[in-house]
């Protein structure tokens, strides 16, 4: 039985990505960000989200894509996963889509410059629209950050 999956669709470097709706808490316009020193460059800092301090990362930087200045359409998607809340800066977010679970395929090694381990699959929306689904657990994996932290403190 094919199940219907609701996903939030956002864009990043002209590709469309999806995060399951139940993982997304809010979608915000850009907010003032306070820089946090001694963190990897894709960690943009922290924001005040209605009284809660939430870390924000640039998803472009996280995936090793070229970072750009935020624009009018830039959004912060607040997701809750791995027992934490975190904001993703994306180029735009404006859509909710239904994806049939049987249309999801295993991602190839690299999609749109993003390594497969950060992705959970690729779904075909229609003839010429591909939706890349994120593997949030891996995106939020701190082990790489810890490596960076150790690297930073030893240097």
């Amino acid at each position, binding site marked *: 039985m094919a199940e219907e999956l609701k996903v939030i669709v956002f864009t990043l470097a002209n590709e469309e990505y999806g995060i399951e709706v139940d993982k997304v808490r809010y979608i915000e316009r850009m907010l003032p960000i*306070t820089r*946090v*020193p*001694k963190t990897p460059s894709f960690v943009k800092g922290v924001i005040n989200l209605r009284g809660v*301090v939430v*870390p924000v990362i640039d998803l472009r930087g996280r995936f090793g894509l070229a970072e750009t200045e935020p624009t009018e359409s830039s959004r912060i998607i607040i997701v809750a996963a791995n*027992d934490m809340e975190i904001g993703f800066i994306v180029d735009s977010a404006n859509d909710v889509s239904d994806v049939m679970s049987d249309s999801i395929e295993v991602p190839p090694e690299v999609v749109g410059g993003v390594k497969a381990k950060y992705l959970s699959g690729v779904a075909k929306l229609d003839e010429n629209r591909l939706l890349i689904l994120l593997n949030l657990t891996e995106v939020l994996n701190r082990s790489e950050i810890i490596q960076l932290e150790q690297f930073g403190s030893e240097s």
Partner: protein
Amino acid sequence: MEEMNQYLSIFIDEANEHLQSLNENMLRLEQQPEDIDIVQVIFRSAHTLKGMSATMGFEDLASLTHEMENVLDLVRNGKLSMNGNIFDTLFKGLDSLEGMIQDVVNGGTGKADVGELVQRLKAIVSGDSAGSGPASSKSSDLSASLLLDQFQQSVLMQSLESGHSAYYIEVAVREDCVLKAARAYMVFDVLERNGEVVKSHPSVQDIEQEKFDRSFSVYYITRMDEEALKEQISRVSEIESVRLNVIDKSSLAEMARAENEAPAAPNAAQREAAAASTAPAAAQPATSENAAPRSAPAAGSAAPRTIRVDIERLDSLMNLFSEMLIDRVRLEQLASEIRRGDLTETVEHMARVSSDLQNIVLKLRMVPIDSVFNRFPRMVRDLAKSLNKKVDLVISGAETELDRTVIDEIGDPLVHLIRNAVDHGIESIEDRLAAGKPEIGTVHLRAYHSGNHVFIEIEEDGRGIHRDKVLATAVKRGVVTPEAAKALTDDEVNMLIFAAGFSTADKVSDISGRGVGLDVVKAKISSLGGHVSVTSAPGKGTTFSIQLPLTLSIIAAMLVKLGSEKYAFPLSSIVETSTVKRDQIRSLHGTNIVEYRQSVIPVLSLAQLVDSPDYRDAEETETEMLVIRKGDKLAAVLVDEFIGQSEIVLKTLGKYLKNLDLVSGATILGDGQVALIIDPNALIK
């Protein structure tokens, strides 16, 4: 079931308190075995514990406490004097009780084989003062008869004269009744709704604490008639029998006479007889049935006026308060912009009230560390005894307060470190004498506040850490390579003992060599957001120092500006704010230093530390400077500008950004911006 759980947690809390008090006072008594006052305190604790345990149905607990109580009873009545055997047996009893209570905490039934201990205790009672024990307890039962004093008699007399009825009521609960105190309470409830209890036996307090066997009796004034009263009381479930005796003027008069005679012949039985004659048939069965309960000690019942609150409620109180505080700061800012007199006044008043409130909210969560420290004297005593060492434990700063959550967690690491100090640190008596040290080793356990942290130190004057030995082991266990080992400083070598899988003990003893190393201690302390360090001098001793956050959610802070960014420093670690001219800063071996109050302290540039994007202090001729402190070390931190002091609400940066080196948290400023809080302890190494 829910209700039972609630009772259980109260039972556990109180049982632990009594155990603690028992332990402490036993130790005190060991120092002053002749002090009967201490015995009284111990007796009372044991007695209460027994009652509580019996209520909750923990029979083994109750029976062991009962036997301990019997021994103590003889001691406090001067029929038995304390000796080593008694101390050891009682201490063993306490351990056994602790084990049982622990079992209850872990969801067990609190059962344990106490037969042997009970026998030993019984032997003490019978052996050393055969016969006198039971006799004395019996007489104390009898003496607690239900006599009215003159005031009570006159109250009864007046009530009779004003048309009330007076009764002597005796109520017996059923043998299988589970919550006797609750039933008794319900009876009292009925009584108090319809009249007034003049006197009860046992006292109301004792009845509430279930210090009665199966029956209790009261003198009672009411307007109700006998039948209705009897019926109402009988309606309480699990009541076996209710007996009412009407008291009239003549029986009162008789009672008064008996009272006068009693002092002349203070024989318990006779007094009993006197009382019985006034309330015929009633008092008699009461005493014959009541063979077990002894006259409960009335003193020590001045309980502190406290209530127990679920810590989660405190947490949510704190969270709500933090929210309010952020709004307060915002309001203050708005008021200063709008500039309306009455608004400003109101906001100022609110600020004052909320800062008082804040103090209270914060204090609610703080617990003196004494609640952790107090178990150590006993532990060190036992340890030293089993190791054939002589050790003095000197505790200071036990009143230092820490957040409840930290208190709950810090116990185990401390136990480990203290065991370590006594087992591995302090030498055997022969070794100490051979090294020209006093026979008795000393372990200092200190706690003190410094900055936003609490420091706990464990210092002993034992053999110290031997660099070569540690290094040899570390190399053998593969913790460091032989090459790297040579380059390590002494302090770094000392820190090796915290490495996983490290143990320097030559032989594994059952004291601290349980395969759990100091790495576990370190991990635990780190998980509390603290650090542990060790300094040692071979032959002189070792000091473990633990630094813990207060985990206050609200702190006073100094806000500073650094170009476009704002940072907060906890006020508690700031010694002074001042300015420094660029040319006063000198370089010494690559470290910037400045003279400060006849000493030289290092200078740190906050801009450099946080890689400020738009501020360089090197470009200034005169710079604002914060002097901060960690323990007795000072350092100067250069900043751009002081914004001012403020109460800030501590927020974490979230799990994603934990374990940051320089930043201990964040706060939300009045304008809604997030400012990072600098951890001053990370600045001073």
